């Protein structure tokens, strides 16, 4: 039997203290019912003797502690999932938000999931073609990977992600594909851009949206990614779908977490963020992957904006330590009109080498990518040097490198928002650009590739 309690002692920010509770369980879900019938939810953060510390999932606006009743539901927070959720919009708690009929859940899942036994994981190794050269060619995305986009305020990450969602496919494959789109504290305008873009190309039919907009209370952001990932897990592991999860914006999520932590008066680690931020992030990011014996997979593209363009800020920093690489956007490229403004040198895909090569993309893919990286890195240095010393003072070799770097940005990195390049188009551009170099400079390429692809120049 579930008892109702009327002993809310205090509500401070998102934290509520309920006293004289018997037998509340750690992390169980709490229902707070007001006199007018309004219901909100929270979860038990800590139990001390007969006191329970509860974190609200929703705003405390108009909460009256004298008349509210609290029930401990004896189970962790769950979300009802079903295939019907495709094409629908939900709030951060997984409740229907688009005004249509409620869904009939196939089953209920604990939103926090449970850790995957590393023995049960299957290594991600299938190449996903995004149609974007700087990703496919140099920082390849692989099915089951978690590859975040490190953006900055004012940069077009929204457009980039929409383009990836539109174009992503696995070569020679016609499996079922789904998108789970989780918005945390983004503006209505951004959310609208995504939804319109998804609708315009039919992607909306295979998309589940979990929306928490900037106008909604920040603490409601905390449950959103967990709800989204539970839906994704259902679609991937029980409906055999290939799921792409877009999480935007993780910086807003971390801020909500910080709000709860400071309300609990916890000892902060860096910049006021709680010491368990890494663990908490891992609980989200590690839910990407593949499981041996299951057809489906979860690929994650979290987006975060780096406060003050600072890569060492705890949010990008801790994310980078968990995710399998990052796609870094650069302000200077954007200013030069290069779209998408991907800084390929500080971007990285850790799983690249598993997803490319003979039988997947091309045998030479890795060598070609390394050679392009090396030449572009040296070219950028040469350009910097030329800025200081003047064009004429740099060595003839450096001049070639500098002009390569320029062409590389204009022709390889830069591409239209609607331009969908196949991996082979990407390779062709790469080889063409390398023709500028004398053979001796191309140390990363085996002689046979040079003979085959760079002949006649």
């Amino acid at each position: 039997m579930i008892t109702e309690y009327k002993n809310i002692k205090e509500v401070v920010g998102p934290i509520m203290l309920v006293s004289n509770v018997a037998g509340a369980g750690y992390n169980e879900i709490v229902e707070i019912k007001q006199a007018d019938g309004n219901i909100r939810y929270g979860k038990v953060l800590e139990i001390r003797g007969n006191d329970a510390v509860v974190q609200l999932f929703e705003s405390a606006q108009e909460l009256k502690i004298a008349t509210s009743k609290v029930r401990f539901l004896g189970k962790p927070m769950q979300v009802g999932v079903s295939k019907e959720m495709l094409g629908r919009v939900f709030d951060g708690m997984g409740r229907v938000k688009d005004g249509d009929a409620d869904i009939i859940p196939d089953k209920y899942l604990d939103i926090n999931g449970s850790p995957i036994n590393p023995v049960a994981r299957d290594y991600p190794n299938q190449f996903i073609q995004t149609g974007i050269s700087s990703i496919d060619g140099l920082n390849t995305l692989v099915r089951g990977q978690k590859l975040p986009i490190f953006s900055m305020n004012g940069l077009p990450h929204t457009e980039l992600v929409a383009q990836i969602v539109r174009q992503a496919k696995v070569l020679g494959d016609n499996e079922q594909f789904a998108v789970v789109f989780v918005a945390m504290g983004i503006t209505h305008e951004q959310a609208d851009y995504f939804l319109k873009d998804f609708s315009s190309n039919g992607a909306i039919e295979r998309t589940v949206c979990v929306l928490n907009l900037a106008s909604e209370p920040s603490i409601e952001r905390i449950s959103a990614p967990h709800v989204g990932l539970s839906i994704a897990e259902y679609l991937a592991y029980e409906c055999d779908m290939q799921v792409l999860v877009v999480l935007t914006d993780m910086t807003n999520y971390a801020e909500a977490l910080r709000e709860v932590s400071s309300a609990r008066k916890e000892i902060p680690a860096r910049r006021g963020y709680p010491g368990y931020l890494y663990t908490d992030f891992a609980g989200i990011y590690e839910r990407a992957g593949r499981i041996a014996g299951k057809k489906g997979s979860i690929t994650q593209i979290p987006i975060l904006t780096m406060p003050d363009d600072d890569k060492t800020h705890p949010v990008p920093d801790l994310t980078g330590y968990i995710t399998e690489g990052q796609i870094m956007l650069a302000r200077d490229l954007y200013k030069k009109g290069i779209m998408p403004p991907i800084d390929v040198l500080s971007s990285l895909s850790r799983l690249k080498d598993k997803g490319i090569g003979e039988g997947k993309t091309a045998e030479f893919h890795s060598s070609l990518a390394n050679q392009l990286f090396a030449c572009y890195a040296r070219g950028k240095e040469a350009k910097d040097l030329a800025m200081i010393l003047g064009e004429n003072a740099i060595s003839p070799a450096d001049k070639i490198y500098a002009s390569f770097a320029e062409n590389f940005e204009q022709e390889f990195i830069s591409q239209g928002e609607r331009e969908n390049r196949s991996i082979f188009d990407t390779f062709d551009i790469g080889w063409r650009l390398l023709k500028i170099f004398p053979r001796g400079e191309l140390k990363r390429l085996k002689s046979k590739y040079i003979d085959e692809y760079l002949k006649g120049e």
Partner: protein
Amino acid sequence: MRGRIVRVSGPLVVADGMREVRLFDVVNVGPKALIGEVIELRGDKASIEVYENTDGLRVGDSVETLNMPLFVELGPGLMSNVFDGIGRSLLSIYEHSGDRIGTGLDTIRLDHKKLWHFTPTVEVGANVAEGDILGTVQETSAMLHRILVPVGVEGVVETIEEGDFNIDQPIAVIKTSNGKEKVCMHTKWPVRVPRPKVAKLSIDEPLITGQRIIDTLFPIARGGVAAVPGPFGSGKTVVQHQLAKWSAAEVVVYIGCGERGNEMTDVLREFPELVDPKTGKGLMERTILVANTSDMPVAAREASIYTGITIAEYYRDMGYNVVIMADSTSRWAEALREMSGRLEEMPGEEGYPAYLGSRLAGFYERAGKVQTLGSEPRVGSVTAVGAISPQGGDLSEPVSQATLRIVKVFWGLSASLAHKRHFPAIDWLISYSGYNGKMDNFYKTNVSYEFPKYKSYIMRMLQEEAELNEVVQLVGFDVLSDKDKITLDIAQVIREDYLQQNAFDEVDTYSSIEKQNKMLRVLYTYATLASQAVENGISYEKIIDIGSRAKIARMKYTLETELDELDSLESAVKADFAILENKEGI
């Protein structure tokens, strides 16, 4: 004895009625019997660190002590296995409960049913003391597991027989002064207590890793300790994996501490397919994994490195050389910080507890080269390599600083090298090895007398390059003298053709020390002849144009079976310079 929960806060549970319990005893918490460890006692209240997810625990739930400390089971079956932070076999858990790790699982450690063939090496009537070898078990094709007389047992072997036994059945009976002691093939050992040894020995030989920049410039000794700090994306994990793959050790213990699940999967899928260049056996045959991935309970992260090093010490005691990798000690320190915060301890720097330094030192001090127990002395070693993930790549943070006070070898990874795809991104300007001097004798006698000379030469050239680069930044390359230009050229050859090593290339991934020596000789020959030629007035452009220079760029792809080619290359370099000097009339 039963206690009662009075507080639950994440992995921290406080229970009362615990007056009889000892510190660091293992307890079963709640109806699912979650595993926890007592970490503080106040009156009859015990603070318990719970190693599993505590969701659903309630005030009033019971807590039961097992009257023993947190231990690991040591015996045949460890090798090629995967354990979680508290020593449960993840392979067994997978068979038992599928893809996800649930809570309150029966403690599955070693396989107690499997039969192993035991071959005695002592006879009935022999006098044996603790640490003596009783017999052997072929644990995997690469590991001959030695069964030792347990610690504290001494006497006469009364019975011992060959045959197939499980790890619970007695294989021998030893008559001691206190009666008869039955010996089976496994022991339990508390993870927080170092296993005993006779003496720590001084360190005098390198652990060859097959990684050129490490073996040549910053060697690690057998029994030594090293730290690999670096920002994300600088290749820490690849360096650790390379060491796990190619180190000249009989046993590798790899602790994935708070890192990605896929990295563990990578090891599990890839290692069985790789072959140890020395034994010809699969690499997994000598590898043990301890995995607490970042989504697994945070408290068990703290225990995982102790579980790992206890297993390492166990194989050391058999007389083997063990390498232990911890990736990453920063996650371990964060787990420590999280518990400390929940215990409401006064924080030290950046919220880390004040005892961070002493705990780290305690871990690294368990490494070393030792004389083991036993009447016939054996030598074993544990070499420890810890990765550090400093926030923002900033080494002034507490974990890096506390580690650097302890370790002798520092392989500092640099983001800028990684951006240029120079891997391994070990920055030669900031890295060091405190074993350098001690190793020179070994290299002189076992590799070549010249080896230390080559090493100090390339270190010097790299240093000069760094200084010249500053000049180039100011005035440009063209105004440098030909001598300086050649110095830069030599440094570039060293960087690109020697230090860069591609972990994903079949051939380049491992360089034997003989290959390193021969490559160095080619480099040194080229460098001295080029410098000489400049002295003789030959122009920079003509020198870098010689034909064998392009071959130097590809010498890293020389097969181990065709090292003679490097000798021919050296002759070719000499010949090229002779022709050049001839042409120029010198």
